[in-house]
């Protein structure tokens, strides 16, 4: 299990975590598939999560989700967390999770680690909060 703040982008299905959905954007069509961006968070950080297919309709704000074998990587230009083809998401509860909306792991610029180009490290903060889902005043 990893907390959101400890995630590092990688082209691997290596993210096992739990979070609560804060907000959901509009569902769009990507070819044959439905997709939708969501703001999710745990007690350590927030991140943008890309919902696919049925996930778009079935999940909603306040749902606590368990993610197994998820992937945190660049999808076109967006850095998002998602289940991907090998991962699995499941709703395990509702409401009872405290969260923070900053830092947002998707709003961070990452660069290859000079010592190990296969790994990423944080370079700069693009925005402390999500630019797509600003905090509710």
């Amino acid at each position, binding site marked *: 299990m990893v907390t959101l703040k400890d995630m590092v982008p990688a082209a691997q299905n290596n993210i096992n975590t739990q979070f609560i959905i804060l907000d959901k954007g509009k569902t769009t069509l990507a070819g044959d598939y439905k997709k939708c961006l969501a703001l999710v968070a745990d007690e350590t950080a927030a991140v943008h999560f890309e919902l696919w297919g049925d*996930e778009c309709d*079935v999940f909603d704000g306040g749902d606590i989700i368990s993610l197994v074998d998820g992937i945190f990587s660049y999808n076109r230009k967006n850095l998002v967390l998602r289940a991907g083809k090998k991962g699995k998401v499941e*709703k*395990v509860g509702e409401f*009872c999770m405290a969260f923070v909306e900053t830092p947002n792991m998707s709003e961070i610029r990452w660069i290859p680690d000079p010592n190990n180009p296969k790994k990423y490290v944080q370079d700069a903060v693009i925005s402390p909060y999500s630019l797509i889902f600003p905090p*509710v005043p």
Partner: protein
Amino acid sequence: MASKILKIAPLEAQNQIELSLRQALELLEPQLRPPFPLTIPTPEEYSQLNWAILYGVLCEPHFAKIQIKYLHAVVTDGYCFFVNLLTTIVDELYSKLVKSARIQLISLVSEMIYVSAVGIDGLLASLLRQIVGGDFSDGNLWLCFELVSLFLCKWNWLVEEEPQVLRNGLHTYLRVLSDHCRFSGDSKLEALRRIEIEFCIKVLREQFHLCLRIGRDLIRLLQDLVHVPEFRAVWKDLVLNPGEFKTQEFEDISQLYRQRTSSRYFLLRITPEMESQLRFLLTHVKLGSQKRHQAWFLRKFLSGSERETLIIDIVRFICCGHHPSNDIIQSDVIPRWAVIGWLLKSCRKSYVEANVKLALFYDWLFFDERIDNIMNVEPAMLLMVNSIPKYVAMTHTLLEFLLLLVDNFDSERKDIIVKGVASSFGMLARKGVVGSIHVLTSCDALSPPHKEWLGRCFESWSFYRIAASPSS
């Protein structure tokens, strides 16, 4: 895997309780038809047997009779384990149970009453908690009907063995009647209303001595039903002919005022799920970061204009059923007064708003420091004081309501109420919940009549003089 007893949404995790029940049935199914094994089960086997029988009854109605017979044959603990399991299922899964499973559940409850099972009172309380105020869905109305019918059917047993269940039932049905009587044109509610009224009147007229223990909230619930002829008659007798109730110790309605209502009744009116969410909000969510949790709560429990009456029950629970520790009070967690302010602002209907304010101030009216808890009156005070100056309209509306209450709640016994309110203010000042009442009496935005009334209230009880020096 599709569930036989639960409505499971796609992508929802397997429910652990259901998994255990199903596995037990799969394991023991061959045993659950005659000829039954005659060996005495080990404790482990006994538990498994209970799980299997319960699951079998819930999902296979045609085999239920045989399986119940087997339970009667093997039981060794007065059905304690079985009933506890049923209670857990009600508390955690009732809202997800499919209709056929709910029907089976009620027939099981009836069976457990028949054998006077250990823990049946807890099971019935858990079921009553699933009756939700402001909920006019078929499912909720069905449950109302099933339970009140059960209570009337098992009347003698209730009176002789389970007076607390009778009290719990009265409290619940007086409460939902206030919803059901509001829509007098609705024929769907007609039959239900009649049987609910029959039950409540029977309890009040035949077992009044049992009702006394409910305490002052009984009055609050009855007041909302005064427009119903049967209850108007009860009300008249309560006020003018206490002797009609043939209860020696009951001589005057003020005895009910003086009896604090136990927090068990406030828990009765909210479901376990509402309770967990409210307690979570008041324990883990920081003031300033509550907007998203509040929106989810509203969407889940209060969407639909008829749902609003539930807010009355929630406020009563927050004041009297949830007392945060000093650590929480001193932390940055959202305080009770802020949650109540939000709920009050969410009311759209004026009669609901009035009832919510009554729920908020109710324990003020009869406050007696020997028996009442300051934690029940603290949220109202802090809401009034902390709304100055930014939301002073809130302070104004609350004080105005309090004034109205003192004058009109019971004009024959106004002295009791003035004393109660003054005691509340006094205790709140003495215990340092607020620096002094001066913060209210010196607020420019409050009207002179309000300030004058407050001043007179304290002078007559000297609390104003005892209070600490004015805060800025």
